[in-house]
């Protein structure tokens, strides 16, 4: 299962306050742990919303609004994508995250949609055809 882990923004991240040395070190170690555990797929920090923009669509028309955006609580400051076996595993890993911001903060966990690796279950006829094709292709490879 894949999860996107989002560190919510706060006034510091929105103000572009860079993390202190201790936090940088701790976060570095944490990221290394995630990588070394084989669960880290991707992860990035996001710049403050003052450098971003929003596009609002309404009745076929769009409007562009430049940041910053006021509702800090709804913004994110960074994300990861992890490969784990359950939501509980994602939660356990999040618990190990060093405190990125002073005071209260939230980290949101959302499951990523994944198409089934296989389509609907194959009928016995299709399975036999599959097995036959596989045997034939293996014969080819041995040549």
């Amino acid at each position: 299962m894949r999860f996107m882990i989002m560190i919510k923004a706060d006034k510091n991240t929105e103000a572009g306050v860079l993390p202190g040395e201790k936090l940088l070190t701790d976060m570095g170690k944490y990221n290394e742990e995630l990588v070394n555990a084989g669960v880290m797929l991707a992860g990035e920090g996001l710049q403050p919303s003052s450098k971003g923009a929003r596009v609002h669509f309404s009745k076929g028309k769009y409007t562009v609004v430049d940041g910053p955006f006021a509702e800090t609580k709804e913004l994110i400051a960074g994300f990861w994508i992890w490969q784990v076996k359950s939501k509980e595993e994602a939660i356990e890993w999040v618990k190990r995250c060093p405190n990125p911001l002073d005071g209260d903060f939230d980290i949101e966990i959302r499951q990523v949609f994944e198409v089934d690796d296989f389509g609907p279950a194959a009928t016995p006829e299709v399975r036999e055809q599959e097995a036959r094709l596989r045997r034939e292709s293996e014969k080819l490879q041995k040549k």
Partner: protein
Amino acid sequence: MSSTDTHRTIEAVWRIESAKLIAALARMVRDVGLAEELAQDGLVAALKQWPESGVPEKPGAWLMAVAKHRALDLLRRDKLIERKHEELGRELQTAVSQFDLSLDEDVGDDLLRLIFISCHPVLPFEGRVALTLRLLGGLTTQEIARAFLVPEATIAQRIVRAKRTLSEAGVPFEVPKAEEREQRLSAVLEVIYLIFNEGYSATAGDDWMRPELCKDALRLGRILVGLAPSQPEVHGLVALMEIQASRSRARVGPSGEPILLLDQNRALWDRLLIGRGLAALKRAEELGGQKGWYALQAALAACHARREPRRRRIGVALRPCTPCWPKSRRRRLWS
């Protein structure tokens, strides 16, 4: 937290912590089978206590404390029984006094030792696979059995025999010496790649544990990269697995029929995994490992992933190394 939630959390904690736990214990008691038993004691204790007391803040340390406690008990008891056997007594003395060094030792070293020993050549191949998935993958016997389409008892036996073989052969719990390392590493890569292939060959309608093996293998491979970052073939293996796994959604048609590589819908390729695979391949090449077997396979797979399926490029990649390819290797060129 409901009891079910707590159980699921304990399972998650086990997945995260068990390999490191077993690895550290194996160094202490110098027996992989005993190490696993002690770790399991920790798990049993957690299953009993955490639903009541809640999940501790540092669950890994909690499990380790329980396991260590049990290990010390065992060692002291053994020490009393073996008092007459001086040599053994001295060994046990050292083991007991080394206990507290445990937390300072590099976790990475322990894990590396555990991987090497799980894939030891003295074990039959299927024993290595089962033991690795159990000790390093954290899979239960039942999960391994479902993944390999064999009865649970078969896997249980393979694991028991493997532990016994390691114990009777007196296999030391150490990283192989320089002259053996290449061959031993090769054995590890072989096990991981076999697990991946087993998952990759799963067909529609199979137990979902089967294709899940690809993810288990990828995780093991990535862990190995962290433990042995200077080994180009480790990066090569991971590159190959990432790129092959990237195609899993495109390989099977709506009725379960296999779709050959050149006919696949590339929009279904997972570009996140392709990116990771290409990065791993680059690292393998930077380490001078472009002619390694896995790196070559990965380079071949990468040709397609980069949307340049020119025959010439593939021909160039193949030319330098064809005589080196062992006939026993399964090739997955066409899917």
